């Protein structure tokens, strides 16, 4: 029981101990009530925890998994290609146009002794063509079977895009653009599927002669 402490001040008014005791009892009751919530409250607490425990992974995994892409500009549109397929980026210094090739093949370049064909994605994707300058870049993509260069107007850089932020391809994109699309980012960037580009047999030009039919 609380005992009245010796007060320093001499002129203390008389303390109503009954009120004090009543207050203490009320506080005690409130404390006990607070420690053990009602069954409904307990149930809702447990239920909320169960939902949090069950749903935790999607949030964490989605935030963690990301795709590294090399972003580049093509006719003022942002495109991205998976960085794991990109071997290097080099300036388009001198290329040799190759006759009798489809229009998407710009020509061939010599990168440290390796002859690579350069694909112009703009003609591929029916984008308006821009004149070539020596500021154009070539992104060399490769896998175990294939390697070629992709012509880019400018390189924006390497970015890590969370997989959750990549939306599936728009249904309005049809034809060849849809076939090579991996997804669209929230900033209207287009992620290209490098694996499918590299494995596409349409890009392999076996032989084009005068007698052949286009």
């Amino acid at each position, binding site marked *: 029981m609380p005992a009245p402490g010796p007060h320093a001040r001499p002129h203390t008014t008389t303390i109503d101990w009954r009120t004090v005791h009543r207050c203490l009892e009320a506080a005690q009751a409130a404390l006990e009530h607070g420690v*053990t*919530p009602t069954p409904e409250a*307990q*149930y809702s*607490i*447990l*239920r909320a*925890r*169960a939902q*949090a*425990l*069950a749903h*935790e*992974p999607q949030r964490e995994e989605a935030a963690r998994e990301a795709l590294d892409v090399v972003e580049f500009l093509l006719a003022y549109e942002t495109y991205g290609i998976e960085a794991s397929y990109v071997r290097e980026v080099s300036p388009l210094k001198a290329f040799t146009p190759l006759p009798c090739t489809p229009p998407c093949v710009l020509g061939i370049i010599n990168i440290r002794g390796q002859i690579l064909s350069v694909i112009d994605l703009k003609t591929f994707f029916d984008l308006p063509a821009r004149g070539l300058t020596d500021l154009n870049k070539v992104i060399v993509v490769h896998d175990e079977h294939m390697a070629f260069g992709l012509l880019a107007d400018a390189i924006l850089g390497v970015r890590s895009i969370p997989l959750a932020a990549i939306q599936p391809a728009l249904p309005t994109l049809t034809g060849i653009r849809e076939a090579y699309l991996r997804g669209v980012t929230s900033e209207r960037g287009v992620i290209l599927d490098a694996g499918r580009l590299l494995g596409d047999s349409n890009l392999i030009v076996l032989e084009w002669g005068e007698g052949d039919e286009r």
Partner: protein
Amino acid sequence: MNQGHQLVVFTLDEQRYAVPLFTVARIGRLVEITPVPHTPEIVLGVIDVQGWIMPIVNSRRRFRLPERKQGPSDQLLLVHTARRPVALVIDIAGCREDL
């Protein structure tokens, strides 16, 4: 460092119990338990842990301690056993201790 000698201590009715640290997947507060019919009486039901459904064991009944209704102040100990991961209802998890 020998992992087998590190323990996670928990209490049930003031009695201290311990499990090897490497078997413990996680420790959390008690969640809603989904009851499952036709289970052994020590199984309270199942819970969903990040998509994994695991049985939850009434450790008081397992150790033949006086029963008590589970409440939000209880804790969960998720441990790996030889056959499957299980969740134990415990009073309070203590700290890691080295033996």
